[in-house]
């Protein structure tokens, strides 16, 4: 797949408060995005993900670096001269225009012929399920419908790059999941290169081909969702994406590690040296608790939470480490109680690269 959107050493500094040193919001970021892929920028607030997105759209002027759409350098172009379309967090629907005119706005700016405007708007409204709402005022729409208008207004333009700035954060949980599915389906059907900003890791996983985790203005890891979840490159990523247990172990052989006296399996192709002490990551759902002695490391249940479809346990090992374990369908073999002795084993453990 050809690269469709390329950021080269992209940098943004904001003037510091009261003449203080400049604040670096985005720190020399390099990123290449293939045509037709959906990329999410994921990170805690203040990590620079929104600034990065706004630089792609042209609302922020980069302090340094370059932005290319295909082969065309665009970072010096005004926002209206770039072929992007953005779904805003607040939707930013024009309150004085009805649904049709909102969606038609961009086409009218491009002086598309009236007949063609009507056809394209109708088709897109059909696509997002708003046929029949053409003459509604935005104030007469629900949150989900406003969201669809914002989306329709962008895809009707068939832009080079589609941008999303936390578009689902104003919706309730149910609607959020539904819109997430709709956005993904639409994006795949249209095959449009998309950049999506969110701080919700589940949303990032569900939506994207590539998740770019950012922290303090830099990219910490860029990987497909499953890789990111299974093989985080740092403690930060492991912690930010899903829940994680961090254990310390001694490598016995390339496939085995000793954790609190238990011999556990290392994930494959882990570049570790025998005899080294390593930091290991394991997800709570990969932790198994058993009542029978002998399997795994011994521990005591400290905390129990029953959440219906699964149960969450915190188990203290002999080393003092606390391991979080999630068990689905807990009613099947009976819940563990606080104070109960259990034996803890895990699926393959992922070693983190040594911290610098």
């Amino acid at each position: 797949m050809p690269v469709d959107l390329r950021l080269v050493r992209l940098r943004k500094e904001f003037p510091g408060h009261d003449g203080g040193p400049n604040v670096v919001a985005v720190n020399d970021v390099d990123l290449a995005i293939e045509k037709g892929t959906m990329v999410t920028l994921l990170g805690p607030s203040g990590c620079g993900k929104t600034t990065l997105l706004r630089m792609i759209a042209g609302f922020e002027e980069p302090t340094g670096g370059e932005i290319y759409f295909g082969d065309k350098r665009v970072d010096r172009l005004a926002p209206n001269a770039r072929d992007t379309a953005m779904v805003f967090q607040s939707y930013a629907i024009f309150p004085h225009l009805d649904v049709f005119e909102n969606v038609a706005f961009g086409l009218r700016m491009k002086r598309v012929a009236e007949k063609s405007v009507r056809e394209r708007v109708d088709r897109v409204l059909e696509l997002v399920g708003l046929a029949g709402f053409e003459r509604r005022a935005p104030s007469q729409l629900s949150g989900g419908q406003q969201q669809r208008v914002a989306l329709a207004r962008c895809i009707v333009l068939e832009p080079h790059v589609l941008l999303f700035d936390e578009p689902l954060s104003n919706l309730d949980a149910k609607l959020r999941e539904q819109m997430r599915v709709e956005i993904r389906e639409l994006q795949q059907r249209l095959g449009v290169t998309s950049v999506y900003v969110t701080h919700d890791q589940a949303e990032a996983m569900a939506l994207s081909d590539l998740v770019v985790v950012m922290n303090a203005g830099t990219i910490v890891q860029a990987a497909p969702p499953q890789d990111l979840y299974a093989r985080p490159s740092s403690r930060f990523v492991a912690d930010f994406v899903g829940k994680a247990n961090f254990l310390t172990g001694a490598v016995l052989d390339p496939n085995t590690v000793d954790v609190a006296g238990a011999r556990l399996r290392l994930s494959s192709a882990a570049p570790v040296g025998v005899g080294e002490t390593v930091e290991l990551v394991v997800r709570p759902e990969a932790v198994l608790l058993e009542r029978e002695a002998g399997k795994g490391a011994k521990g005591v249940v400290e905390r129990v939470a029953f959440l219906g479809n699964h149960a969450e346990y915190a188990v203290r090992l002999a080393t003092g480490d606390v391991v979080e374990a999630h068990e689905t369908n807990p009613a099947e073999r009976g819940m563990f109680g606080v104070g109960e002795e259990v034996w803890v084993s895990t699926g393959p453990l992922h070693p983190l690269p040594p911290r610098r």
Partner: protein
Amino acid sequence: MSRAVRELRLLARDPILFGLVVLILAALLVFVLYPILLVLWQSFTTGTGLGLDNYQLLAERRLYRNALRNSLGVATLVAAISVVIGYLVAFSLSRTDVPLKRVLHNTTILPIVSPPFSGAISILFLFGFNGVITRQLLGLRDFSIYGFWGVVASQVFTFTPIAYLSLRGVLAGINPTLEDAAMNVGASRGQVFRRVVLPLSLPGVASAFLVVFIESMADFGNPLVLAGAAFPMLAPQAYLEITGSFNLPRGAMLAAVLLVPSLTAFAIQRYYINKRQYVTVTGKPTASTTKAVGPAGKWLLYAGVLLFGLVVVAFYGVILIGASTAVWGFDYTPTLRHFVYVFDVGWDTVKDTVLVAVASTPVSGLMGMLIAFLVVRRVFPGKRPMEFLSILNFAVPGTVVGIGYILAFNRPPLILTGTLAILVLNFVFRYVPVGIQNGIAVLRQIDPSIEEAAQNLGADGVTTFRKVTLPLIAPAFFSGLVFAFVRAMTAISAAIFLVSANWNLMTVQILNQVGSGRLGVAAAFSIVLLAIVLVAVGIIGTLVGRRAAAASTVRF
């Protein structure tokens, strides 16, 4: 790379917007700053060169010293009285449930839409040499209304509505829940008012005081009619120096002196007090009936409001009677001859006035919204100067501007004196600040991503402004238009320097008629002027109001 260069490059991406910024900045420099600087320059000009000679006269001559003292004294007292009355009326009409609020509100603000010296004419009718009250009712023969009290009375009448409108906003912004909370923890009614309502509204009171102070210092019409020869005041004295003795440097000196307290008050109001306003904005609608006054207090306040309303009605009634009777004080036979005079001899003046107002209003209104848009939404070098210059004229007394214009545009490269253009330009730049202020206030409430969305969808800066911003700020646009039109119709202090044989204004005509003792004609002019203003406000209301309603019913 320096910040200014970066900002400039960003702006240059949008050539039309860039052009507009340059154009507006240039226009502000030429039509706002340059004339004021010329006045200052002129005030230091002596027969031999530059010097402080003119200012020395201020110390030497009793006339000038008194003018300064009188102006300051009148302005202080008028501001105090106006704020007290304005506060009472605003409190009653916005925080208590009393009947006829709408009617009383409209009556109270009527003086704003009429010439700023209608009150002076009414006072002459009532208390002048042939006044109904002084001469006919009380039989006084040697009573003179001219002087301190005459000016104070007519200015209080003229400026109380301004204090009222400003305080009304402040009082309406105080969340009634705070009063409930105070009572809930045991405060009595009096304590609620003294410890909660009053302290919260104090910055607003100070602000209203300073605004009225500025207006009073700058007022020209009332002092010219009612001050009299024994009671000199700065603005009319500056005018007399220039038109009577043709002494430009001295007139400029007086104008410059007038500028100092006005600009000081403006600076305090804008940069100190406004930052201390307590605005309690919550999304919840609140029934805003106060608990700080009991029923007795409420009706007592209401009586005061009614009294002020009655005074307003009486003043306009007197003008109406004066306009339609033969000779005030002697012969009350109904006649239309004053109106006939207005439509016959004065017809050209009526046409000129309306033409000037119609020409300047849309320009002023649009420019106001455009500047508000640029100031709030764009970053460019010269943004702060643009904001400052565009609202500076709010504080600069008209007399200063008028003198500045004749100094600036009476010589090449721009010779404009005696033309329609000089009047239109003067009004455009003088009355743009209120539109800007309103526009800025409304724009700050609108999510900037709405405009970003327009740009993102391919609209350039000007299209964004035209298609998105302007419709969204239509209410502010509307009030800016109304303000510009009303002021253009009723202005006098700067305009009196700029009128000519070819282009005359009704307000100037009214003053001339008063000066030559033809009060009936002056009254008829005033009535016609008021009628035109009311009709025009109605027309602007229906034209813009429809769009404003459409835009304001849609809320995020």
